[in-house]
């Protein structure tokens, strides 16, 4: 049994300590907005925030996440920045298949929480860990700038 602080709730999961956080979120806690893409922190589909930092949950053991504040896509819009990012994503028509977008939004939110006026280079640096095979990168940049403007 392990207790996790997920989206402001204390949740108990009956899982082995070596289970990656991703599978605890998806299978045990039924928070399926966070996606599986590669299992080796290469694609970013599984990105969540741990204490505010964008983190790949597919390689983070659940034992290492205990006692830390975990935020997932399901909760991100309760934050001012997360809401602005989500709205910008819709306004810019970013999503195509949509499978990677939870991770993209979590990374973008973490970026804007730390830097309200990111340059294109800073956006690229923060978002490089998130692959999109539909190729929505142009709109991701535009949406981050839009969210930044909305937050200004």
């Amino acid at each position, binding site marked *: 049994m392990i207790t996790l602080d997920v989206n402001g709730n204390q949740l108990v999961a009956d899982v082995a300590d070596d289970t990656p956080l991703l599978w605890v979120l998806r299978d045990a806690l*039924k928070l399926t907005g966070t996606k*599986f893409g590669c299992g080796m922190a290469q694609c970013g589909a599984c990105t969540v925030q741990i204490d505010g930092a964008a983190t790949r949950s597919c390689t983070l053991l659940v034992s290492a996440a205990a006692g830390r504040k975990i935020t997932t896509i399901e909760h991100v819009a309760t934050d001012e920045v997360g809401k602005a990012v989500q709205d910008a994503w819709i306004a810019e028509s970013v999503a195509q298949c949509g499978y990677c977008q939870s991770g993209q939004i979590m990374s973008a939110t973490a970026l804007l929480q730390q830097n309200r006026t990111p340059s294109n280079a800073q956006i690229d640096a923060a978002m490089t860990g998130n692959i999109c095979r539909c190729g929505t990168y142009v709109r991701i940049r535009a949406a981050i700038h839009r969210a930044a403007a909305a937050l200004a």
Partner: protein
Amino acid sequence: MKNLIRISPGDTRIINPASTGGVNRRDLLKGAGLTLAVVSTGSLLGACSDTPDAQATLVPNQYLRIGPDSKITLISPNTEVGQGAYTGLATLLAEELDADWSQIVIEGAPADVKLYGNPAFGGAMQGTGGSTTIKAYWEPMRKAGASARAMLIGAAAARWDVPAAEITISKGVVSHAGSGRSTIFGELVGDASKLDVPTEVKLKDPQDFVLIGRDTPRVDAREKSSGTALFTQDVQLPDMLVAVVVLPPRFGATVKKFDAAAARAMPNVVNVVQFKGTMREGVAVLATDTWSAKKARDAVKVEWDETNAFVMGSDAIFAQYKALAEKPGLEVRKEGDAAAALANGRRFDATYQFPFLAHAAMEPMNCVVQIRADGCEVWNAEQFHTGDQGVIANMLGLAPEQVKINMLYSGGSFGRRGNAFSDYLADTTAIARADGSGRPVKMVWMREDDMRGGFYRPAYLHALSASVDKDGRISAWQQRIVGQSIIEGTPLAAPGAAFDTSSVEGAHNMPYEIPNLQVELHTTKLGVPILWWRAVGSTHTAYAVEAFIDEIARGTNQDPVELRRSLLARHPRHLAVLNLAAEKASWSTELPKGTARGVALHESFDSVVAEIVEVSQKGNGFKVDRVVCVVDCGIAVNPNIVAMQMESGIVYGLTAVATGLISLQDGRVKESNFHDHPVLRINQMPKVEVHIVPSANPPTGVGEPGTPPIGPAVANAIAQLTGKTVQVLPFSSSDVTIV
């Protein structure tokens, strides 16, 4: 793209592609002059409940129903893989219905070829592919909307006792100006459902369009920006088991024996089974959760029989292909006498080599199957309903209609989920059958399984020769194409066809006018499972043709755009696209030293696309700075989605030429995951500008045509800088790096 899309804050549309109910066909087809159908809806969990008041639901045809709450449910025959099919179809329907955009919800259609056969496939198959959705439903979906509109107007005319011709509908509000009366759809559906469905309806004059050609918000934007869109990966059912599999190390290997003692002893493991689908054998671990299944899968030891396994490596395959290219192949196009004409003038030769390519969709393949006493239920990002339903029914000894398919969102596909052999669905079915518990089974491929599971874009080799006369005109062109056929040997093969056009499309129909022109094909057979991959034959033919044209232009000191123009006199549509691209890209202006432009033009899926890129040298690598894309796709139903698909195709095609590679060593696939199979990332992303040629012609394909030109355009720009065209793809195999 700024300010194109607005969604009102009160937008509470719920899209539920998982709903499985839709129209009950038996009821729908009850009698001619049908007035009412009984409708049932189902949730993802299979719990069924009837619509509260079936009497108050208008179901004029199989594509929609309008409820007493004025909600319009569009039943989409085609799948949403990211290409915008749901939004496009909704635009067609809402346009002729004069509905308000917020009224529309989408539901995935059940597998039923009689009702939902794709008109672009002659109605013979229900499936999504070939960039056909908008082209296929351009008329049927508008007629479906117009029929419903006529019935609503009929009901209002009767109720208000006014002439139908005096009634108007705008944004979901039905009005009669003369009497000042107005109402909404939900108030009329009861009466409307008692009227005959009109046999003929008049469609709008294009100048009256209020949605088509404008930018409606994507119907799936909110779900896909909030983690609530439902993919196969997300399906959770009571008592569901998760299966993770051991796949063969080589294509064609079979299971000799396996030792699962350690796996069975691991926590949450319920069963370990051997399975045989339509295309492969393997061993599956079934557990109550994914990670337990994955860990136990890693502990299974399988001994394989590789007697009939495919053991060639990529080098040997290409050596064989090169030898074949030395010999004449099957003539698929012949004009004049290319062989004779090649003997005169200045000769050019080039051989281009294209590797196997994985689709590598973000969502690795997966599928949920539950076998019950009375049939089978499937949850899948369903791209080929008719084929999958038939394959599964055949495996289980069922009638096709006993296989119920729930169509979910697809986390990309690029062709992978539309497979004549239903490979991964058949595997899942075989696993569920071998398990035998009747519990639902979700088979989940790890990324490595997806990368090494086969069904690649086939490897191809093109050998080209041309001769140029003293005036710089291309007098002869010979192109020999060597590779596997995607369609031969599948149930989709056209009976009696001399050759598979998908092997040569884009080459045997190239628009350039050359007096002596010959295209030949060698169709090879290899034990590597292959499949269509975004833009199919054009993924290699566009590169071969467009790179070779540029090699000739460079070798004869001709401007690449001018040379193409001179060969397109009889193709005004191509010429217009090329000219607009040259204008938008300022083709004839100077660029700074170390920067060059490249152009490519290609027709696929009845659309013509030109792309002009700017590439700059950055250290030892090359940066694609800018892409100007011009597309003629007929009427652009959703210009924003057309732009999205061009952007998407450009990234997909650029990834393929830069680093896309599946290589075989003694039959084993070397690549496994995104660390050794890199794909384009945001830091490599160029600026993209999309321009749509205004057109009054019916819509043509959009999902795929953006992909073919980008590779040769970038190769041609790099060649301007280096003097060399990359001939062995991807660029990374030729020591050319895209940064």
